[in-house]
């Protein structure tokens, strides 16, 4: 009876994971397909779609913008989240419902609405959008994720370590530099990486804020798909997917990140 339950669990999990991960692996496979249209039956193996990316400069320049936006916004989000997580974990206050709700707010507002809001804020302020508007909206969107990961780190943190450092002569900032941050580094790195990757691939939040001068890779892909679907997109997607998996696996090896408590 127990054995049957275990077998059923395995089968069920296999099916679910197939459902969740299947489409992406399919894209990965299609990116090597010699067929010119996508989707198409599998013909042969080629790398020419990857080479084609090089001819489309807008993919490369938008990828660079995406990288910068992701870097800066993730740094801001992680910094803000670290300070907030510290305040929440160290403080003697009981669970403040308003605080939790406010800090979780970016999760509840649809990304398209966030993008629209920033666009309209910019126009009301008489400004155009641009790099820093993108950074701002990405940073706000990232805060709850950075906070979640940092809080799991703080949950396992013994604040007596900070007291020990202080009693030995370290001021607050020194204690953070010498003790708190090094001990929490896996959570901080996990938070940064997660925010970076999510920012990089995020379409809706950037949708209305991109202009001809500043645009992100997902927005470029979005306009590209409007006109046609070709395997080059599969190649771009495959690169993103493999990079994301690789980074996550490498970091897990080095830092043993845990997403669940």
């Amino acid at each position, binding site marked *: 009876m127990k054995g049957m*339950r275990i077998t059923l*669990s*395995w089968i*069920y*999990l296999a099916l*679910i*994971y197939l*459902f*969740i*991960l*299947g*489409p*992406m*692996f*399919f894209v990965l496979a299609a990116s090597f397909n010699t067929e010119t249209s*996508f*989707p198409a039956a599998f013909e042969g193996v080629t790398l020419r779609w990857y080479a084609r990316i090089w001819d489309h400069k807008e993919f490369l320049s938008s990828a660079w913008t995406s990288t910068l936006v992701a870097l800066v916004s993730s740094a*801001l989000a992680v910094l*803000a989240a670290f*300070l*907030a997580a510290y*305040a929440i974990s160290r403080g003697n*206050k009981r669970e403040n419902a308003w605080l939790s709700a*406010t*800090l979780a*707010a*970016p999760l509840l*507002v*649809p*990304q*398209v*609405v966030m993008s*629209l*809001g*920033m666009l*309209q*804020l910019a*126009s009301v302020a008489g400004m155009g959008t641009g790099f820093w508007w993108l950074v701002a*909206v990405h*940073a*706000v969107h990232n*805060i709850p994720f950075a906070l979640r990961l940092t809080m799991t780190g703080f949950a396992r943190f013994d604040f007596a370590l900070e007291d020990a450092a202080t009693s030995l002569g370290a001021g607050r900032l020194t204690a953070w530099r010498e003790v708190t941050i090094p001990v929490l580094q896996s959570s901080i790195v996990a938070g940064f990486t*997660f925010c970076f*990757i*999510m920012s990089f*691939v*995020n*379409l*809706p939040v950037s949708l*209305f804020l991109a202009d001809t001068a500043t645009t992100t890779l*997902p927005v470029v*892909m979005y306009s590209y798909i409007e006109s046609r679907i070709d395997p080059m997109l*599969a190649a771009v*997607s*495959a690169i993103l*997917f493999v990079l*994301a998996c690789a980074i*996550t696996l490498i970091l897990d090896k080095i830092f043993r990140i845990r*997403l*669940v408590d």
Partner: protein
Amino acid sequence: MKMGFTSVLLLPSLLMIFVFLGLPLVVIAMQSLQDNVLLQFTPPGIDNYKYLLTRPYYFDVVVRTLRLSLLTTIFAIPLGYLAAMALPVLKGRLANMAIMALTFPILAGPLVVILGWMALLPDSGPLFGPLVRAGLISPPRILGSETAIVISQVQFVLPFAILTLYTALRQIPHNLYEAAASNGAGGLQSFLHVTLPLSLPGVLSTTIIVFSLAASSFIAPHYLGGAADLTLTTLITNFVLGTFNSPLAAASSILLLAMMLIAMFIFVKLFGRFIRP
């Protein structure tokens, strides 16, 4: 001194949220009351809302958003719950990898995933193509239908659902199961009397998360739905990038937010009756 210091630490996050989320929402709300190319009136007024809610075309959009989100939630919760219950059979490293694998779709980005569905779902695609060609089924025409949207939305929210439910189930103390077993409870009874009731708060938060994600979903309806099947998110996009109508875009946004808040409220009330304090 201590109290003040911790409050200062909260400032950066709270400031960012107020300025880059709260303020924009206020601006949207104000914009939604403005007149525009389609509707002439003296602002501020709620004419935009009346317009969107009385015109059948737009009202359909609202209903469709609600319908698709509910469908996604109704499928995702049981599937996720079962998966969360099944996960503990994996041990050690495999379990860790399984949890990590759930984050891959999120990290790869929705665009990647949608391309996958666009590849898999067409009648000529690898899934249905062989079946149609073999004459086993007639062309199901899933791509471009609401079914495609729901399928891909379910796939998108499942990792979130599984992770949240897994955490909730893990928090049920193990000795409760042992106590139930020693009292003669079999597997099913143990589930009904221990697992299910104690996991309800977790199911509630998962429902709220999944519903919010589904309602906020843009990429699935945009790429996998038919051109006429608009949801509130794609409607907003049309107003912004298509007809350049800010006030109506704003009003649609507020409607979407309102719908999500009302749904959350209803969920809490509904579950609240079953969750004993």
